[in-house]
C-alpha cells in the first residue's frame, strides 16, 4: 500500500475559532470543516471557481507584521498579534487558506452584503415558488429565509424572459428563474466536455441558451438540473410530478455499468419518482449519467414477472421449488448454473453455493459496450468482480455461452438454472432451450422465461438490500427503496431455498446472517458485515485479479491496470 500524500495543514481563524485545514482550501470549504455555513450559489466543489454570484462575501484579515523588520505587531489591549482587517469584503470561494488567515462571517458588514446580494438576485426572479419544482430544495429559497431582508423594496417591472425553453430532450429551462451562476455552463465545458450552453445578450437581459441548432442532449445533461441552485433547469421527466419534501431518500447504486455510481432513490408510498447522484469523491464525485436515472422505470414495466409459473401455468412458490428440487434429483450430474454479473455479491455467493451443492459448472455472461470515459464503463455488468471475489467464477466471462451450448448439444446438461440471464440473448438457440429444463429466476419476461419449466419472479435492485463490487474492487451497498410487487420473491430467499433443496441443509437468506457465512467463507470479505459497510464503500485488495484482462478503459476515477503499468515505464 502506498500511503496517501499528507496535505500541509495550516491554522486559520474563522469567527474566533482556530481550525486546521489543508493549505489552499478555499474559505467556503474551510468554514464547512469548522461547521460554519457560508452561503453560495455559483461555487461548486467539483467545478472551477468563477466568483460571479457574490453571495459568499466575508471579512478577511491577516496578522500584522512590521513592514521593515517583519516582526509581529502586538495589540497592547489583548496581548495578541494585531490583525489587519481588509476594509472591503472578499469572496470566500476564491480566497485560499494560508497560515494565520482570519475570517469573520457574522459581522454587520457581512450581513449587509448578503442582504444586498439577495436583494439583487430577487429583483428579476419570479416569486413562483408555489408552482416551482425546485421549491423545497432551492438554495435561493433557503438563503432568502436565512440571509435575506424579509421584505421587498422593488416597485419596478420585472424583466420578461423565455419561460419554457427545451434545452434538450431531458432538460427544460425557465430563463426568468435563472440567477446566472453559470454552474451548468461550467459543467458542460469541464465535465461533460460538450460546450453548448452560454449566456447571450449579456447585461440586463442576460439569457442562458444553447447555440442555435444545438441541443443539450449529452448523456450527462441532467446533472445540470441537479446543480442548478434555483428552478431554472428542471428535468422533463420529474417536472410537476411530486413535491420533493414528500419523497423518501434511499441510498442505492447505479447498475448500468461497473463504475457503480452512488445514487439516491427518491420514492413515495412505494413508487419511485427519480434517481439522483450521491457524492462519493472516489467514484462519481457528484455526477451520474442520464441513462442510469431512467432505470427505475423497469420496476413497473409492462413485462415485469409477477407470477410463479410451472410448465407455463400459474403456480405457487412451494410447488415450483418442489418441482425444481425434483429436477435437481432426476437430472443430478446433468445440471448447469448460469449466474449473473447483475446479481449482488450475496446472490452470487448463494449461486456459488447452489452450483457447488449440485456439482454443476457455473457460467456468467459478460456485457461489453463502449465506455464513455466518464461514468459509464465498457463493462455493463455492475458486479462481475463480485463473482470473482465470491469465487463463482475464476476467469472473466464471455458474452456467449458456447461451452454450455456444446454441453446441451452433447446431451450432458439436462437442466439449467439461470439467475436472471436471458440464455437466448447469450447465444443459446430455441432448439437448445427446448432440449433442457430451465429454472429461471428473473425480474422481466424474455425468451428464456417463456421457454422455462420453472419461473421464479425476483426483485429489482430497488426492492432489495445487497452489495456490488465495482471496477475499483470497491464494495458498495444498496438499500431497499420500495416494497416488492406481489408475486415476486427476494432473490436471496429463492436461491437459499434452491441451495437447501440441492444440499439438504438449511441456508441463511436474511442478509445479516448471510454476511456471517460470507465473511467466514470468503477471505477477502472476512472483516465485513453488511451493517458496518461505510456509505462510500470499502476498497478490497485487487492484486489476486490484477492479471485479468478487464474490459474497462479509463473513467472518471479509474485507470485500468494495464494503463497504470505502462505509465511507469519509459516509452
Amino acid at each position, binding site marked *: 500500500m502506498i500511503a496517501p500524500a499528507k496535505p500541509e495543514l495550516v491554522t486559520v481563524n474563522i469567527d474566533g475559532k482556530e481550525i486546521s485545514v489543508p493549505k489552499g482550501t478555499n474559505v467556503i470549504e474551510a468554514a464547512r470543516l469548522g461547521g460554519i455555513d457560508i452561503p453560495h450559489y455559483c461555487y461548486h466543489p467539483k467545478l472551477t471557481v468563477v466568483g460571479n454570484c457574490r453571495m459568499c462575501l466575508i471579512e478577511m484579515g491577516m496578522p500584522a507584521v512590521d513592514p521593515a523588520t517583519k516582526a509581529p505587531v502586538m495589540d497592547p489591549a489583548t496581548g495578541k498579534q494585531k490583525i489587519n482587517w481588509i476594509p472591503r469584503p472578499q469572496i470566500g470561494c476564491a480566497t485560499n487558506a494560508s497560515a494565520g488567515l482570519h475570517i469573520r462571517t457574522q459581522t454587520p458588514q457581512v450581513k449587509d452584503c448578503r442582504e444586498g446580494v439577495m436583494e439583487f438576485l430577487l429583483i428579476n426572479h419570479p416569486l413562483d415558488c408555489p408552482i416551482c419544482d425546485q421549491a423545497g430544495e432551492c438554495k435561493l429559497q433557503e438563503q432568502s429565509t436565512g440571509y435575506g431582508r424579509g421584505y421587498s423594496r422593488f416597485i419596478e417591472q420585472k424583466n420578461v424572459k423565455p419561460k419554457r425553453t427545451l434545452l434538450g430532450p431531458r432538460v427544460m429551462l425557465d430563463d426568468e428563474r435563472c440567477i446566472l451562476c453559470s454552474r451548468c455552463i461550467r459543467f458542460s465545458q469541464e465535465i461533460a466536455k460538450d*460546450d453548448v450552453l*452560454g449566456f*447571450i445578450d449579456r447585461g440586463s437581459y442576460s439569457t442562458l441558451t444553447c*447555440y*442555435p441548432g444545438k441541443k443539450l442532449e449529452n448523456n450527462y445533461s441532467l446533472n445540470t438540473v441537479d446543480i442548478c441552485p434555483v428552478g431554472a433547469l428542471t428535468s422533463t421527466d420529474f417536472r410537476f410530478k411530486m413535491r420533493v419534501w414528500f419523497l423518501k431518500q434511499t441510498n442505492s447504486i447505479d447498475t448500468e455499468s461497473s463504475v457503480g455510481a452512488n445514487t439516491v432513490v427518491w420514492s413515495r408510498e412505494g413508487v419511485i419518482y427519480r434517481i439522483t447522484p450521491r457524492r462519493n469523491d472516489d467514484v462519481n464525485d457528484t455526477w451520474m449519467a442520464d441513462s442510469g436515472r431512467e432505470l427505475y422505470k423497469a420496476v413497473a414495466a409492462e413485462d415485469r414477472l409477477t407470477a410463479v409459473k410451472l410448465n407455463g401455468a400459474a403456480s405457487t412458490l412451494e410447488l415450483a421449488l418442489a418441482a425444481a428440487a425434483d429436477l435437481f434429483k432426476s437430472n443430478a450430474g446433468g445440471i448447469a448454473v448460469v449466474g449473473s454479473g447483475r446479481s449482488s455479491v450475496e446472490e452470487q455467493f448463494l449461486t456459488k453455493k447452489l452450483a457447488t451443492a449440485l456439482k454443476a459448472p457455473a457460467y456468467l455472461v459478460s456485457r461489453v459496450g463502449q465506455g464513455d470515459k466518464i461514468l459509464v464503463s465498457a463493462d455493463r455488468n455492475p458486479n462481475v468482480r463480485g463473482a470473482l471475489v465470491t469465487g463463482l467464477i475464476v476467469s472473466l466471462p464471455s458474452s456467449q455461452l458456447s461451452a454450455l451450448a456444446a454441453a446441451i448439444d452433447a446431451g450432458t446438461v439436462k437442466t439449467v438454472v439461470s439467475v436472471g440471464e436471458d440464455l437466448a440473448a447469450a447465444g443459446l438457440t430455441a432448439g437448445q432451450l427446448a432440449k433442457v429444463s430451465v429454472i429461471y429466476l428473473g425480474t422481466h419476461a424474455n425468451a428464456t422465461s417463456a421457454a422455462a419449466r420453472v419461473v421464479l419472479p425476483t426483485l429489482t435492485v430497488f426492492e432489495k438490500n445487497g452489495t456490488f463490487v465495482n471496477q475499483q474492487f470497491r464494495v458498495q451497498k444498496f438499500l431497499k427503496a420500495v416494497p416488492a410487487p406481489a408475486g415476486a420473491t427476494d432473490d436471496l430467499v429463492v436461491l437459499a431455498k434452491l441451495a437447501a433443496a440441492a444440499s439438504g441443509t438449511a441456508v441463511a437468506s436474511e442478509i445479516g446472517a448471510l454476511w456471517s457465512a460470507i465473511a467466514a467463507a470468503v477471505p477477502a470479505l472476512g472483516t465485513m458485515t453488511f451493517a458496518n459497510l461505510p456509505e462510500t464503500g470499502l476498497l478490497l485488495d485487487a492484486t489476486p485479479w490484477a492479471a485479468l484482462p478487464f474490459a474497462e478503459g479509463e473513467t472518471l476515477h479509474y485507470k485500468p491496470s494495464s494503463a497504470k503499468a505502462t505509465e511507469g515505464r519509459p516509452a
Partner: protein
Amino acid sequence: MNLKPATLSQIDEVITHYPTKRSATLPLLHLIQEEVGFISNEAIEWVAAKLGLQPINVYEVVTFYPMFRQKPIGRRHIKVCRTLSCALLGGYKTCATFEQEFHTHAGEVSPDGEVTVEFVECLASCGTAPVVMIDDELHEKVDAAKAKQLSDQIKAEAQARK
C-alpha cells in the same frame, strides 16, 4: 464562408498578434463584418472553427456588443447621435427626418434597401451637435433641413446607379 483572399490573409495575420488564439475573436468578427456587412451564424461557426472554439463562445461575444449586426443592413448606414448634446439640439428630429425621407423606422432597412437609419451613442463631436455619420463620413450640425439635403443626395446617387 466565401471571404476575399485579402481578408483571409488579414485574418491569418491578426491571429498571430495574440498569445492565445481565442483573443483574436473580436478582430476576426470586425474583419468579417467589414467585408460581409453582418455576422451570420455561418460566420460565427467559421470563426469558432478557425480559433478552436465552440460556436456558443463566439455567439456570446456577438450578442454582447451592439456594434455587431446579426442581420444585413441597407447600402448606407446612417448613424444619428442621441447622446446629451445632440439630443438637446434636435438629434431626434434629425432621425425622424431621415425616417420620413426613406419611409423606414430606426433600426430597419428601408423598403428600397438603400439605407438603415439607427440611433447611436456619442460620436465625439458634441461641439457641432447634432451629428450624423453616414458610413465612415461625419456630418456636423445636421438639423432637419440638412438631413433632407443629405437624403436627397443619397437618393440622387441611388438614381444615378440605376
